[in-house]
């Protein structure tokens, strides 16, 4: 029997809740792209589940018309682990922010990734604590002057991509909130990956940290500051597509002009499937303004998936021992009988 799924649209994924982000918040754009991407996946709406922690981005599940769990600060990956273990057919998305994922929830992020749980983690990075009104976050640049650091922050920021590549993430990508086509394509790729997909989205907090990523989002500027990755293609960027990245004699990346002596063949070619994470890490380390920052899928490899393995172990145990025999379990070990007095 085959019932054709009704073709869903973005509208089907809009919940009846009023969206309460600040006007012009980057989150709106991400929400719009998500609603656009999900109907294309051919998965019934009831199979989607969004799990979030605490923060502006974590309100996301309320605005999606599917199953959702707005949990507690930093714990979304752990909650999602429970959801996936109890209900493995669900398509689970974790929505998180830089404070939620990398500060209070760093431990859970790390472990969800190393287990390779089949979930999609979308980290909205705005380099600031928005919901608590403007403290610096673990991704704020050193020296950030914020409400809690009037003299400038003193700690070095984390690079989200370096962190997750260090955790052996199997799918790592980056996009920008307002780069709608690229964002939609990146979310789609993440959805199709089996295992943990991690996507960092540069997201503008226009109230507490406006313009943090204009270099990567503004037309006329971004062309020189970001490089779109394509598997098997050289790293070329610039308004005129006249610049590239190549590896120098020491294996370090350098920006070169594509004219005269240097041709495309001399450039660094992207290989998202490289088993060795060195290239992915090298790309993650390319930061503005020294380098164009890579956008797109940085790493995409296949590893055993945790929730599937958990399920398989249960099935294997049933195969080996049969469905649990209650009688046998109750009587395991030594037993003895006390006769009644009459006996």
């Amino acid at each position, binding site marked *: 029997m085959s019932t054709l799924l009704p073709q869903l649209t973005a509208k089907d994924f809009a*919940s009846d*809740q009023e969206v309460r982000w600040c006007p012009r918040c980057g989150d709106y754009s991400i929400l719009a792209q998500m609603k656009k991407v999900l109907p294309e996946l051919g998965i*019934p*709406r*009831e*199979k989607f589940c*969004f*799990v979030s922690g*605490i923060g502006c981005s974590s309100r996301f*599940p*309320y605005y*999606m*018309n*599917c*199953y*959702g*769990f*707005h*949990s*507690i600060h930093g*714990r979304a990956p*752990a*909650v999602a*682990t*429970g*959801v*996936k*273990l*109890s*209900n493995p*057919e*669900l398509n689970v998305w974790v929505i998180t922010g830089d404070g939620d994922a990398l500060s209070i929830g760093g*431990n*859970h992020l790390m*472990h969800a990734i190393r287990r390779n749980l089949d979930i999609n983690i979308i980290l909205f990075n705005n380099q600031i604590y928005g919901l608590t009104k403007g403290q610096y976050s673990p991704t704020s640049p050193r020296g950030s002057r914020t409400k809690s650091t009037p003299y400038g922050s003193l700690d070095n920021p984390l690079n989200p991509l370096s962190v997750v590549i260090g955790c052996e993430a199997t799918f790592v990508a980056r996009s920008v909130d307002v780069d709608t086509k690229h964002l939609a394509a990146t979310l789609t790729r993440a959805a199709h990956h089996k295992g943990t997909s991690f996507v960092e989205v540069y997201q503008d907090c226009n109230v507490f940290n406006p313009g943090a990523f204009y270099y990567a989002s503004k037309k006329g500027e971004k062309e020189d500051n970001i490089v779109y990755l394509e598997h098997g293609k050289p790293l070329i960027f610039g308004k005129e597509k006249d610049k590239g990245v190549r590896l120098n004699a020491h294996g370090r990346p350098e920006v070169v002009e594509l004219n005269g002596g240097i041709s495309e063949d001399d450039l660094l070619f992207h290989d998202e499937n490289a088993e060795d994470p060195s290239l992915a890490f090298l790309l993650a380390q390319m930061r503005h303004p020294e380098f164009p920052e890579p956008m797109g899928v940085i790493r995409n490899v296949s590893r055993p998936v945790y929730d599937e393995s*958990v*399920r398989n*172990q*249960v099935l294997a*145990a*049933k195969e*080996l021992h*049969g*469905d*649990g025999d*209650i*009688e046998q*379990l*109750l*009587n*395991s*070990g*030594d*037993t*003895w*009988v*006390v*006769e*009644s*007095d009459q006996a």
Partner: protein
Amino acid sequence: MSVADLPLSPEDRHKESVDTVVIRFCGDSGDGMQLAGTQFTNVSAVFGNDVCTLPDFPAEIRAPAGTIAGVSGFQICFSSQEIHTPGDEVDTLVAMNPAALKSNIADLKRGGTLIVNEDAFEKSNLKKAGYESNPLDGDENLAAFRVHKVPMTRLTRDAVEGLGLSQTEADRCKNFFALGLVYWLYDRDSKPTLDWIEAKFGKKPKIAEANVRALTGGSNFGFSTEAFTVHYEVAPAKLAAGKYRKITGNEALAMGMAIAARLSNADLVFSGYPITPASDILHELSKLKHFGVSTFQAEDEIAAMSATCGAAFGGALAVTASSGPGICLKGEAMGLGMITELPMVIIDVQRGGPSTGLPTKTEQSDLLMAFFGRNGESPLPIIAPQTPGDCFWAIQEALRMAVEFMTPVILLSDGYIANGAEPWMVPEVADIQPIKVKYITDPNTDDGYWPYLRDERLVRPWARPGTPGLEHRIGGLEKRDGTGNVEYSPENHEHMSDTRARKVANIANFIPALEVDGADSGDLLVVSWGGTFGACRTAVRNAQQDGKRVSHVHLRYLNPFPRNLETLLKSFKKVLIPELNLGQLSIVIRSKYLVDARSYSKIQGKPFKVAEVYNKINEFLME
């Protein structure tokens, strides 16, 4: 004394019958005392005695050998009568080294039997134990006991000679030598232990043979040495007719969960993080996956609790287990489970606190944390099993309550019942009630699915994600009753706080009334809860036999309390609440019922002795 001069023939010995015996094995953490104790428990249980045990081991895996800190002990009480505690005083103490002797001799009854491994009483061990001179050489302190100095190390080496074992391997068998000797002394059948050795070391025949020889060597030594002129028999106990097995509290919890999952046809997701004394629950349950159990060793306690919330949302029977320090960490996520009204069970195997405290010792000091240890108004039902075997029933009740009332439930076990063992009557499968797991399948209003539309008991429905038409969002923010939409209005928050509290309080109408041991009124009511059941019940019975007007109630349900508790409290002139904390239940009882309950507290990492509670009863009655 040496083995060479052993003239006495076995016929010269005589056997004495005794009702109840308490034995304690103690030695270095590496001496295998827990194993010896477990084996003795097993053979005594299989023989038909009632047994009750108290393992007592250090927090360190291997504290420096020979030191007091490294002493590990295992106490067993076995009897031809029904018993409820591991015994107040020790009849026979087996001490494998000076440190063990020093730290345990105070508990040996005057006139009791002391068996020591005299080979271990050499200079460096004596020094480590803080002995100036060898206590075995004419120390008058030992004059009150029947002392048997046995060269166990040498005799064990002799017994295993020729097997090609290294000295370390040979010395590792001396716990079996000690065990064999005590088996002879108490007329135990060693077959269950021989079977165990075969099963455990079958693949290492040399080690198996060595342990068998050591065990037999110990028995033969007792049999043929004139020093042991008496040995004892303890007849089987007249327990209720039926089939029995030995069980510890942690085993019972794991078994209870697996069977609940199987009978209810629901998946059970257990998330935990290693912590003493709760880890065995995870160990046991991870072997039972074929019952439909998934186990998740999380990265930390918070993750284990968060995953439990996630699993409950996903539609599974969700359980996590920990001990005090872990429960502290879980607090915020327990609140999430509470406000989202999802069914789950949180097991707290209590240990000595605060902070890391006494990781391997028992205590009841997490009661107020279970009551109040979360932010906001967050009452949760609390159930406390009273014996190891009772854990089997308590966990199923906790799961049933969680699912029926859509709430997290706290199960308060403790180190004593978690590791302690007792004979447990194996239930008939038909006597185990399945837990009815019911998910809503269709929208419950014309306006679609409302996740917080309640029934007459204020219970909300449980929708399993994946069900078409029931898509909904829940979370930790305050929500409007019915729709579940986020809502911060003052009236709604008050209504919701009140509703959640009333839902939990209403459970009192669905739990059994308290049963009183003794008369319904009188001079003194002893109120206890959890693992102190045995000591309190026995002490009250002893006082009742003296003619005192004392009764006992033991609380299994701590929140809400059984409905008849108040009447009972007010039907006695005095109320005594013995607890292994500084009086936590008494604080709750006093404030809730305005009765002048007296707290009797002990906080030494050890269970109550019967005599302690008995003496306190008499003391209080005389005031």
